[in-house]
């Protein structure tokens, strides 16, 4: 699968753009630096990294929960890391979707309400959001009768697909996936990857996918190895 290349002369606005990022923890002295990373809409990135490699910190930076000590992150061409934390929360609600390793859903809410959570924080229209949520869940292969069930009643594979629906409900510019396949078996993993990228492409969403599983590398056109980030290695 290849990323969408710009077809016109006019350069496309990058979905996310990182420049001269430096982040460190004062106490431990641990640091992370990333001189440059630009992802155009529809371009997908594979980040290879084991736990403890600073993966979570990078994801927190990308999601706007942490803000870098130096450098700037732009989301959709607009300042992201330099604005207030509350503003970043709003921008995250509107332009970034997140899928975790597992237990993505709030167990006591229904499947539909879980998906609609992102619309609630993005202040989207309720009715159109619900229509879109039903459509997305259908496309992700979840039967309509599951929608009113409590999220905890679903299988892990189903839960991960509901998480994709939630992440893509607001047609975000960016989808951050943190080892979403680690709890799935091989068959489920491949169908999950296909369905994720298919739906992301349909929304024009850029996917940043973190995993330590090199077998998933083939789905992506760009790769970043966490191990080199401390030395400031550029993505290939």
């Amino acid at each position: 699968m290849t990323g969408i290349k710009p077809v016109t002369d006019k350069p496309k606005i990058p979905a996310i753009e990182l420049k001269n990022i430096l982040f460190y923890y004062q106490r431990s002295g641990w640091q992370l630096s990333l001189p440059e990373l630009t992802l155009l809409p529809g371009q997908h990135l594979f980040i290879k990294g084991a736990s403890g490699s600073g993966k979570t910190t990078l994801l927190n930076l990308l999601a706007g929960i942490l803000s870098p000590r130096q450098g700037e992150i732009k989301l959709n061409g607009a300042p992201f890391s330099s604005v207030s934390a509350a503003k970043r929360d709003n921008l995250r609600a509107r332009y970034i979707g997140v899928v975790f390793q597992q237990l993505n859903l709030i167990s006591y809410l229904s499947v539909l309400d879980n998906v609609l959570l992102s619309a609630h924080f993005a202040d989207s229209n309720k009715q159109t959001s619900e229509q879109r949520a039903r459509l997305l869940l259908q496309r992700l292969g979840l039967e309509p009768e599951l929608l009113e069930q409590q999220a905890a009643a679903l299988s892990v594979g189903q839960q991960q697909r509901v998480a994709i629906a939630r992440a893509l409900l607001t047609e975000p510019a960016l989808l951050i996936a943190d080892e979403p396949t680690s709890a799935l078996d091989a068959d489920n993993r491949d169908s999950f990857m296909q369905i994720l990228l298919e739906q992301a492409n349909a929304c024009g969403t850029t996917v940043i996918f973190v995993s330590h599983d090199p077998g998933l590398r083939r789905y992506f056109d760009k790769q970043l190895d966490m191990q080199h980030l401390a030395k400031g290695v550029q993505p290939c």
Partner: protein
Amino acid sequence: MLIKLARQSLWNRRGTAIMTLFSLTISLVLLFGIDHLRKEARQSFTSTISGTDLIVGARSGQLNLLLYSVFRIGNATANVNWATYQRISKHPQISWTIPLALGDSHRGYRVLGTNKDYFVHYRYANQQTLRFSEGQPFEGVYETVLGAEVAKKLGYKLGDQITLAHGVGAVSFSEHKDKPFTVTGILAATGTPLDQTVHVSLEGIEAIHIDWQQGAPVPGRKLSAEQALKQDLTPKAITAFMVGLESRMATFVVQRQINEFKGEALSAILPGVALAELWQMLAMVENLLLLITLLVLVAGLVGMMTTLLASMKERQREMAVLRAVGAHPWYLFVLIQLEVLLLTIFALLAAAITLVATLWALQDTLASHYGLFITINPFSLQSLYWAAAVLMVSALLACIPAFTAYRRALNDGLAIRL
């Protein structure tokens, strides 16, 4: 959505939530119940007597005299001679007197021997006089006027006949069966111990004891009701009497004169002063009770915070998910606060319902056993203040788990520590 989240989150943890609710409800019932009881008891006590300037009885402490003459609690130590009573009531400063003769009962209700002045001069609450709901004051020797409660509880109507028993127990072994009394009047409810009193004339009291000596029937000397009427029924002694003065200015002078009365050892008390002393004594107990109740409430609230704080660990996942979809840390803070508020409001409602139900169930027992007349509605403007204070304290305490959620949201971000 926020409310839905709070509600469903609570429902998800309903086991602990219900237990928390339960302990909170108990402490709130205690708080409101004791506060209500305290106010009602004071109201009920102070409204029992009004407009009486002095109460006179055999020499004793003023509380003892007040308790047996007004509240029908306890017994007199000695009696007042009829002649003494006659002499004092002619005092130029004294406008009226009400004689009181106690010592008999009817099925647990105390019998009060008095005269018709009682229905004219006795005042309760705000200078209210006694009213008859049915009938009129007693005229003859064997006639009686019942308090509202007595008539209602025992189902007596005008014209019914009742027998009096010697002593004040609920069950008596020596009854004045030979001399029944006819009900001629029933008083309207007053909310005072008067409602539980059976009123008869002093002559009636004398008549039923005419063939008695030293508190027991004299063997072989039996007089029928008609025969007794022919005897001299002037009482030999009374238990106490109430005094109304011409001018309140004279209160202390008359009180001193009675206290220094040469013929007999008497005590004259000011009902207002005695009531105040009674309350002072009870105030300490009352405040202690309120303090304990408040501490129970605090324990309940702290318990709620502890369970919430403990649940924060298992809810990290929930918080991380909410953060990921764009919730501000403040949103999580408000979410926890809202859960606490929901719990507290539910507890307040549950407490209100429990309290009304309990009062409704206990009202009769309290009235008949303790002379406490409690209204069922325990809510006043002050209970609204209490409720507001409880809500505020719980919101304040909720800041602890809420702030934990807030801080975790900032520190942990999307990382979930399992």
